[in-house]
Each structure stands twice: as C-alpha cells, then as structure tokens.
C-alpha cells in the first residue's frame, strides 16, 4: 500500500515513466487517487486464519502479520525470519516472533522460495507493532503455486474469521 500512495504523490513532478498517464492523473483529485490506490492494494492482500497476510505483485509476495496479531502478541522484541533462498511449503513453520518472553511461530501463507527478509525488522522488531502492514513486513517470497492464493481469505473473510472466533 505504501508504494502505491507514494508514486501518486510524486505525480506532480511527473517522472517520465508516468508522462503518458498525465491526463488521467490530473483529472483525479488526490483523495480519490489514494482511494483507488488503496482499494487496489487491499484487493491484492490475502490473509490466513493464523493471522499472516500476503500481498502479491506479479509472482512476488510480501508477507507479514496482521494488526490483530501484533496486538495479541504485545511488544515484539525479536523476529526470527526465514533466510533468503529457503524453500517453503504453504503453512510450514518459517520463523518466530518473540514478545513478552513468548515465542510465537510464523507460518508461510504460500509455497515458494524466500527472496528477501526485512533486515529493518530484525534491527527494530517494534516496527511490527507500529506498522504491521507496511514497514513491519517480514519477508518476500517468490510463489511457486499462485493458485494457493485462491484458498486464502480476503479482507472481509478475515474480518469475519476474527468475529466468528470470538475475538
């Protein structure tokens, strides 16, 4: 979501790559531009019942934990993230988040190969609490089975899951 908004904010300077979109951009006001952008990003984000989210752009998914999860954990003091190049299957244990002397396991929402882990979060685990969907992303993974996304929950489904399971 952060990437989307910042690109449109920069539109006033109109980098060359966006010049051909100029008429479309100028006809929208900033508010609706942001709304359009965030709806798009939310549509891309999927959730698991274990409170992980995955946001897929092309074949690369960015994975994190939800706002509900960071609240339930408490202040995160340590993030154990999967190493780049590790192969994961959907729902594999792939790390842990430690808070208040409790280590909670992380599960990969999709199968694939880890391409990057968030070193900022390793340095400053509190980013997970402060910004669970943006700066607090955990790792990126190149999906090997895009069809797995179909079985994950969308935002409405995840909100429903929180309501139904008595949170």
């Amino acid at each position, binding site marked *: 979501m952060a990437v989307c908004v910042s690109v449109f904010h920069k539109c006033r300077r109109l980098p060359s790559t966006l010049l051909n979109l100029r008429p479309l951009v100028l006809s929208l006001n900033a508010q609706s531009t942001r709304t359009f952008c965030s709806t798009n990003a939310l549509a891309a984000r999927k959730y698991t019942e274990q409170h992980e989210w995955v946001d897929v752009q092309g074949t690369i998914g960015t994975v994190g934990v939800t706002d509900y999860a960071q609240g339930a954990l408490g202040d995160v003091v340590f993030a154990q993230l999967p190493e780049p190049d590790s192969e994961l299957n959907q729902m594999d244990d792939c790390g842990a988040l430690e808070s208040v002397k409790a*280590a909670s396991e992380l599960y990969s929402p999709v199968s694939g190969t880890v391409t990057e882990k968030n070193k900022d979060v390793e340095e400053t685990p509190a980013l997970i609490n402060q910004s669970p969907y943006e700066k607090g992303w955990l790792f990126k993974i190149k999906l090997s089975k895009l069809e797995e996304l179909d079985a994950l929950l969308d935002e409405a489904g995840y909100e429903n899951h929180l309501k139904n399971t008595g949170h």
Partner: protein
Amino acid sequence: MKIPPPSQNFHRSVSVWFVGFLQYQTAYRIQKYLANLHGMANSLNEGQSNDGTILIVEHAPVYTTGIRTSNDVESEGKKLKALGAEFYRTNRGGLTTFHGPGQLVVYPVLNLKNFNKSMKWYICKLEETIIQLCKSFGVEAGQSSNTGVWVKNEKLCAIGVHGSRYITTHGLALNVNNDLTWFSHIVPCGIPDKGVTSLSQVSGKQLTIANVINPFLESFSHEFECQIKMLPFKVREDIVNHLKKERLISSATEEQLLKNKAFISKQYS
C-alpha cells in the same frame, strides 16, 4: 488472603501430571507429545475436552536459553557445562535461565483456542497465578516491565513460553528452596542489575516443592477458570510407550513415570 477452593462449575478442564524429578530433554519430549495431541484435536475440531495438560517437574541443574541466542552461545554453553550443569538452546521466548532441585517448574501445554488466543494474555495470567500463590504464603509479589514475578528488585519466578497454532509449551520456574548461587554464573533473563530470590527466602518459611504444588494448582484453576484433574493413566501410559519406542527413556524412568503419584491431593485425583 485465602484462595477459595476451585469451583467445580468451570466448564474448562485441564489435566495435570506431576512427573517428579525428570531430565530436561525428556520433559520436553513429553511436552511435544502433548502439544501434538492437543494440536491434532484442534485441527479435527474436537473442541471439547481439549483444554490442555499441565506438566509439573523438578530438574537436575540445567541452563537453558531461548530463540534470541547470542553469537557466543557455544562458548557460554561450554562454560556453564563445566560447572556441572546441562545446557540447552530452546525455542521459547526469553534469554538464559537456570532450573534445579528445589525449583517448581511448570509446563502448561494449553490450547489457547479454548481460553484467550493472545500470548500477552497468557503470560499475564501465568504471572497473576504466581502472584496469588505468593499471597497465600503471605508474600507480596508483583509484575514489572520485565516479564516474570518479582519481589522488590529480585526475581522470584521466571517465565518463557512458545506458541504454535495456539498450543503453548515451556512455561514457568518458581524458586522455592533451590540453591540460588547457580544464577550467579549468568545474567538471569538478560537483566543485569536485578537479583533472584526464592519463596522460602521472602516468606521466611522452610518451604519445599511439596508445600507449593497444591496451592499452585488452586491458583491456576482460579486464574484460568478451569477445573483440574489428574492426567488419566491411559494417556500417561501412551506417552511412556511412545518415549520407550523412540528409546528416549530408561526403564527406571519408565517406572517412575507410570507409578509416580507424589504430592497431588485427593481433590485432583
């Protein structure tokens, strides 16, 4: 303050197994077996009677460390083993701590799906259980910004847990009358300017684990709003057979695990 006896109206029911003196790794294997049992029941949606099992143990001297291990953990381990203790890296939260004779070690393998699915809540409830337990011995203990239970600036009870798919492992260690000098070789839980103490020290009473187990279970039952019953013999037998099959226990330990009924009063049998 008198802790009221556990209400039989609580709809949740947790089993308890006091295994007595047991090697650290064996106790962990039992936890894993129980965690698997409760986890599988969860995935099969067997909500009833899947609230959890509490394992109560006493360990020979052992140091353990959590997932946040430092780079020089190998040299730290060697140094601590040279003192005559065992040393293990674990997957729990928290840093380095010590377990030894005279310390009540409790491993609640709970299904948080049937309680409250928050680790923050769970840790808080464990702390409150110990605080209430201390009250029953005339000791005012409390929480602080550091996890655990404290009396002034000294730690009485350490807590470090792990959660996987809502099933908890590891747990707490309450100093009752253990030799506290073992803690001088580490920075307990990574907090350098605070000391450790024991229930015997702060209460001025000569207490042993035997004096503390039943008050602990009463307090747990009250805080977690659950009944507590002895773990059925059949389950204990299954666990022992599993450990035997994997060649993880000796026949002496097998006998101890199957026959040990120490210190649990009638109301929990």
